C-alpha cells in the first residue's frame, strides 16, 4: 500500500505498537493536529467567543466542553480538522519516506 494513502493511524502503525506506546503516539499526534486546528480556529472567533474560550480553558471545564464549544463556534471546524489531519499526514509521510531511503 502506498504510504501516501495511509492515514496517521496506519503510518505510525498504532495498532501494532505496544499499547502504552501506541497511546502515547496517538496523543502526541492528536496534539499536533489540535494545535494546528486551534492556530487556525481561534482567530476566527469573535471577541466574545474568544473570551468565552479562554474562560473554558482557564477553568478547565473539560475537553468535551471545549470541543463542543469549538464545534459550535468555529465555522467549518470539522473541515479545518480534516485539512490539518491531511497536512500532518503529508508531513509524516514525507518524513517516513525520507527515513526509508
Amino acid at each position, binding site marked *: 500500500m502506498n504510504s501516501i494513502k495511509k*492515514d*496517521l*493511524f*496506519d503510518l*505510525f*502503525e*498504532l*495498532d*501494532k*505498537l*505496544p*499499547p*502504552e*506506546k*501506541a*497511546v*502515547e*503516539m*496517538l*496523543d*502526541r*499526534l*492528536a*496534539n*499536533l*493536529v*489540535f*494545535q*494546528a*486546528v*486551534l*492556530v487556525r480556529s*481561534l*482567530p476566527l472567533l469573535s471577541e466574545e467567543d*474568544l473570551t468565552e*474560550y*479562554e474562560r*473554558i*480553558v*482557564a477553568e*478547565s471545564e*473539560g*475537553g*468535551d*466542553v*471545549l*470541543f*463542543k464549544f469549538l*464545534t459550535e463556534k468555529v465555522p467549518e471546524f*470539522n473541515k479545518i*480538522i*480534516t485539512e490539518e*489531519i*491531511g497536512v*500532518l*499526514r503529508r*508531513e*509524516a509521510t514525507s*518524513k517516513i519516506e525520507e*527515513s526509508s531511503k
Partner: protein
Amino acid sequence: MAKEKIGKGGQKPGQNKNFEEMSDNELASILKEVKDENERLEEKRKQKSGKGNGGINSGGMTRSQQIQAKNFQRKGNKKVGESLKKGGKTISENPEPKIVDNTSITPEEKGEPVVDENKNPTKKGSETEPAVVVDENEEPTKRSPEEKEESEETISDEEWKEFVDKGIVSDDTISNIAGKIKEHVKLSKREQAIYINKKTKIEERIKKLNETLPPSEISIEKINTFESLMKELEEQRQKEFENGPQSARIKKGVMDGVKSWENFGQGEKSWKGFAKRMTKTAVNLALIGAISSVSIQKIAETGIITSAALAGGITHKLVMKLGIGLGFGSIMDAGGKMPEKVKKFLPKAIMVGSVALAVGLSISGGAVVAMSAGAIAGLSMAVGVAASKLKKGWYTDQKIEGRKQTAIQKLMEKYEIPGEAGKINLEDIDKFEEEYMRLIKHFENMVIWGKSLDEGAKILTGSIVSAATMFGSSLAHEHLGQHETINKADTNHIKAEKVAPVIDKDNLQHGPITTLEKPITVEFSSRGGIQTVLDMKGAIHHQYPDISKAPAELQEFVKANATQEAIKLGFYNPNDPSGAESINVQHGSTLTFGEKGLSMHDIRTGENQVYSSEHKFEGKMFDSDHSAVKVENVDHTQTVHQDSANILHQTTENHGSNYVRENPLTYRDMHVDKITNLQQGMYQKDFHNTNHGIKGAGVIDAHLHNDTSRHDATFGAKHNRIGHNEYTSKHLTPVEAFHQTQITVHKMLSHVFHSDKLMSEWNHHIKNSISAEKLMEMHHNRVYPHGLHYLKPLAHQMERLEEISGLRPGQILVNGKLYDEPIENFMSRATGEIQKMGKLDQI
C-alpha cells in the same frame, strides 16, 4: 451402512475429528465407547452402593442415561441418537443417545435443588444439561485446511471425572478450548465432549477472543524510527508555531487549549474521570483521522453525557459497557463507522491510556514508556527465572488469550457490585482501572515473551529475555533519559506496575516488577554453595542498598534462607547418602542474577545454566568434609579446611595426609586464597579444637567460640560427620544470623566505598593485601600510602566496630599457619559480636 469396529487400544474411528466431520459410524463408535464407559462406571457405582441393578432398565439404559436421553430428545439430537441406535443399542423410551456417566444423575432426580449451571449443568427444561450430552447441532469447531494438530489429551482424569460427575469445568479449560477452536487446533475427545456440554460458554469466550488484538509484531527499530519521526514533527511544528504571525493572545490561547486537552480526565478519579479519558482517546482517534472528524462533536458530547450520567449514578452494567466497550458501544453510536483497525485498537488503548492518565502522567512526557520498559525488563528477568518451569504449550496463543479472557471475566465479576438500586460505587473505578491495566500488561507481556519462550529452546531463553530487556531499556533511555524522570505522580503508576503478575500464578509469584539495573555476578566461593548464596545476597545489597527497590526476584532471594536457597539450587545437599554434599565447580565459575534470572556460568564447560526451584544444579558434587570417605593418615587435629558446602581440596601435605583430591577450584595463589577464604568467613571446622599457637590477645579464639555462625555455617559437614544426615530448620537460624552479619558488613562497605570504582578497587586490589591490623596501624599513625587515603572512612568504621564490640584485629590460623586477620573478617567478627550485644543500631 457399514459399521466400523472400534479396536481397543488402536486408532478409533473418528478420533481427533470434530463431530461435524465424523461419519455416522464414527460418531456411533465414539458414543458407544463412552456409553460403555458409562455403564462400566455405573456398574462400579452399583457395586459400591450395593443396590443391585437399580439404574438399569429393560432397555439396558441407566437411569441417568434415560434422563439424558430425554434431554437429547428435547434438544433434538437426532443424528446422535440415530447413530447410537445404529450402534446396536436399543433405547426403549428415549431413543436419543447420550454420553453420560452414571454419576450424572441430576440433583433434580436426587431430589436435590438445581444449582447454578457452573456448579452443575443439570437444569430443567431446555437448559437442562446433564453432565455430558451430545447434540448434533453443536459443532466443536469449524476447521481450516491448515488446522493444527493437538496430539495429546489435555483434560486430566481428575478434571474429566469432575466434568462427568458434576458437570464442572474450570474457566481455564473453557478458555483453552475456546482458544483451540479459534486457532483451529483439534480438540481432544474429552474437550469435544466438554465443548458440546458447555457450548454457550465456550462460544462466548471465542467471541471475546476474536475481539482481542494479535500480539505486537512491530520491531524495536521501527518503534525507534517512529519516535524519531515524531520528535522531528514536534520540533518542526513548535518552531513554526513560535515563529508564526499569530498574536500573543492567540498563541496563548492555542497553548492553553492544547494543555487543557492534554489534561482532560487526567488524574481524575471515579468513573466520571474514567469516562472522560475514554472519550479523549476516542476524540484523539478522530483528530488523527482514524475516525471521521465529523464525529468529534458527537464523541465529545458523548463524554459530557457519560459524565453526567455517571455522576447521577447508573447501573453497573451500563458503566461496564461504557468502560470496556466504549469503542464498540457509545462511540460507534456517536461516530458512525469505525474502521476495523480502530475497533481493535480502541479497547486496549482506552484501558492502557486511561490508566496512564489516571495517575497524572504527561502524555507527551513518555514516562509511561519508561515504566513499561521497567515492567518489561522486570518481566524478562522473571521470565528467565521461570524459564525452566516452562511447559511446552503453556504460552500458546489460545492458552494465553484464554487465560486473559478468564482473568477479564473474573475481574468484571469482581466489580459487579450489586449496590443499592443498581448504582455503582464510583470510587471503584480506580481499583478497576489499576487491576485491568495490570491484567492487560500481564497478558501483553505474556504474549510477547512467554510465547517466544514457549516456542524456543531453553538455550534461547537468554537471548529472548535480553531482547526484552534491551527493548525496555532502549525505550526508557532513549526517550526519557533515566527512570529518575518519573515524577512523584508517576510513582503511583509504578506502584500499580509493581504488583503486576508477571507470567502466571502457577509459574511465577506475583510481585514487584522493577528493572534490574545491571547483572549481579559473584564468583563461586571457595567456601561453597551457601557462601556463594550469601555473597550474592551481599552483592545484591550492594547494588540495592534499599532492598525494597530491587526487583521482586532479588528481594525474594535476599529474604530467603541462604542454606535453604543453596539446597534449592542444588548447590548443597546435606542429605546426600554418599556424603557428596557440596557443589563442585571450577574456580572462576560465576553465579549471576541477570535478565535471565539466576544463572551459573561454568568456566570449565563454558555453559550457562538458568536456575529455578525446579531446575537445580545437577553437576558434580563432592564430599567436602570426607564424611563418606575413609581417609587414612589424616591428622584430624589439623583438619582439612573445607566448609560444609564446598570446594577446595588441597593436598594436605603439611599434615601428613595422603588424601589428595582433584581440586575443582584451582587457586591462583594458595596463600591469597586461604586468606580470601577466611575473609569470606571460612573457618576451619575444628579450628576451635586446634587453635594452638594463636596470638592476638585471644580475640580469635573468643570469636571462634562465640560466633556460632561460623560453626553453624558448616553445620552440614559437621552434621554429616557425626552421622546425622537429617537437615533440620533449627540449624538454619545461626546461618541466618551469619547472613545478617554479612549483609551488615556489605552495607558498611557499600557506604564507605560508595562508587563502583572504589568498590572495585577494594575488591580486586586492596582487601587481600592489607590486614585489619595494618589498616588500624595506618589509621592511628595517620599515615596512608599513596592512593590509599580513600581507606580512611573504612578505618573510621573499623575503629567504631572496635569501640562497640571491644574486639581487636587478631590473627587467624590456616593450615597450621598464622595470618593477620583480614579486614572484612574482622568487620564480620566484630559485627557478629555487636549483633549479639543487640547494638547493631549503633553501627
